[in-house]
């Protein structure tokens, strides 16, 4: 038993524990809107994790993740509205599975494609999803939007931003830990091998078709769950929230935060949420800063902020 405790409470993990505990206490001292923002940040962190597993770890440019977010969001909204007794955690899980299945199916034809073709196909996918939602108005409400029912587990309703915060944060923390383990394990290493060289990875026995579709499925699962939480959080869905621009924001988020890094995903989410708030009225300035950062980071720091942090730490600890 002490062994296990020692394994869990390592030096590296203590920082994470403190961060989590602080985050759980924090809402008690904050206003309603700040708590809402923190929840939004957690949702973005989930998207960022999902996208990073596909783009940062496996090296596939995915330019349509707003589509998966929309699928998760609408799925959750529709199930909550029609099957009221279902606990929201089950609904979220199903939303993730549904979105993941679509990601898996999308991954199969994409196996034939390379590099930027994948970006184009996923971009097309994202647009087709929002167009389907718009046109299928008998189910999704189309242009009029869709009101999301309150999240419930048995009798308990998550009817305030404070309650939702705890729901969203617990889901995000669990999925973050899962992602961390995944990337350290066999699957994660297979992803990284595929990113570095598909041919070389195949020669050492990594099943390209299997791991690429798995990467798509897992990425879509994360984004789908994030979509469900997003639906509960903003309580009203409309198809024009899930645009190409949002997909590009997501890419900017992980490029700036750091590709191929869990910490980077979270930093990216913090930056996206922060920018959206600070520059709320100045959309052009916000996009301009994102664009410039994309260019500057890709030229000078392709590993993003988290890469910089790790480099600094390595240099510091070597002395």
């Amino acid at each position: 038993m002490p062994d296990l405790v020692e394994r869990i409470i390592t030096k590296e993990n203590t920082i994470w524990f403190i961060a989590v505990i602080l985050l759980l206490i924090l809402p008690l001292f904050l206003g309603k809107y700040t708590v809402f923002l923190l929840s939004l940040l957690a949702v973005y962190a989930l998207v960022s994790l999902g996208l990073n597993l596909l783009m940062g770890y496996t090296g596939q440019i995915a330019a349509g993740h707003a589509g998966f977010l929309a699928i998760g969001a609408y799925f959750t909204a529709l199930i909550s509205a029609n099957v009221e007794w279902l606990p929201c955690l089950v609904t979220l899980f199903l939303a993730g599975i549904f979105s993941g299945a679509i990601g898996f199916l999308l991954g199969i034809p994409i196996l034939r494609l390379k590099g930027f073709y994948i970006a184009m196909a996923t971009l097309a996918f994202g647009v087709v999803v929002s167009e389907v939602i718009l046109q299928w108005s008998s189910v999704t409400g189309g242009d009029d939007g869709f009101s999301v029912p309150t999240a419930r587990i048995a009798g308990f309703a998550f009817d305030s931003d404070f309650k939702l915060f705890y729901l969203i944060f617990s889901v995000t923390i669990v999925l973050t830990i899962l992602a961390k383990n995944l990337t350290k394990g066999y699957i994660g290493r297979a992803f990284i091998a595929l990113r570095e060289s598909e041919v070389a990875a195949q020669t050492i026995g990594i099943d390209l078709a299997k791991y690429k579709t798995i990467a798509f499925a897992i990425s879509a699962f994360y984004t789908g769950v994030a979509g469900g939480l997003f639906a509960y959080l903003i309580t009203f869905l409309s198809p024009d929230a899930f645009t190409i621009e949002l997909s590009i924001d997501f890419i900017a988020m992980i490029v700036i935060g750091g590709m191929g890094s869990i910490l980077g995903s979270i930093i990216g989410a913090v930056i996206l949420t922060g920018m959206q708030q600070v520059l709320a009225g100045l959309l052009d300035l916000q996009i301009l800063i994102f664009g410039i950062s994309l260019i500057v980071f890709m030229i000078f720091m392709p590993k993003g902020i988290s890469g910089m942090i790790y480099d600094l730490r390595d240099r510091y600890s070597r002395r």
Partner: protein
Amino acid sequence: MLLQVIFSGLATGSIYALVALGLALIYNTTEHVNFAQGEMSMISAFFGFTFFNFIGLSLPIAFLLTLLASAILGIIVERLVIRPAMKAPHFNVFIITLGLSIVLKSSAGFIWSHNDYPYPSIFPDETIAIGSATIDMIGLGNIGMTIVLMIILYVFFKYTKYGTAIRAVSESQNAAALMGINVKQSFSMTWAISFLVAAVAGILMAPVVFLSTHMGLVVINGFAGAILGGWGSIPGAIIGGMLLGVIDNVAPLYLPSQIKNVVPFAVIFFVLVIRPKGIMGVEKFIKV
């Protein structure tokens, strides 16, 4: 009716073809995929707008200046954001051009706002009747202009020293460098030419769709056209662009009219799934 729709499809398609051509030029020489191609057209169209509307030059002079300004901007862009990443993976350069596209769009928004502006055409706004079809001069002019530009580019690449150098670089950068060709100069010239093609596309497109910062989305149609024709093939880009224009205009005749929004995406998706190399494309083999 169908004949007329096909004609307007070709008129739209000529613009798609120009965007696809710009993409193919950059890809062939540098192996980079330029997501900013549409925004380059947009910003060039705004240059022209500034020259004739705010400075008050006559249209032909304004448009010639636009071409010059765009080519210079192309060289600047290549030098500033593409060349520092010349040795980086193509993945990184794709993200850089993605960044470039949103930088161009938001700066245009700052300078000219996101409103729609009417835009004059160099061709007269008249129609002529051929049989049962009425054909508008702007569409005809756009098709003609595209063909003229293609011929100029063909002559440039086939018969001039610089054009031959660029073709050599696209065959093999190392071999070209060993033959004494300045690869970097070829890169910047390619970007200048591609920006020039984008400028022509922008000037031809703006009178048809109104001038606005959203014009850059045409890059999606350009991609669809280039992929349909065969990615990396110049004749393919032209044929694919034209064909996409026709599909774009014919599809709403037989299918629900909302289909128009998804045509380029559906084309991208189906071509990639069924025949990724497109109509004219060649399969590429990967060397390790």
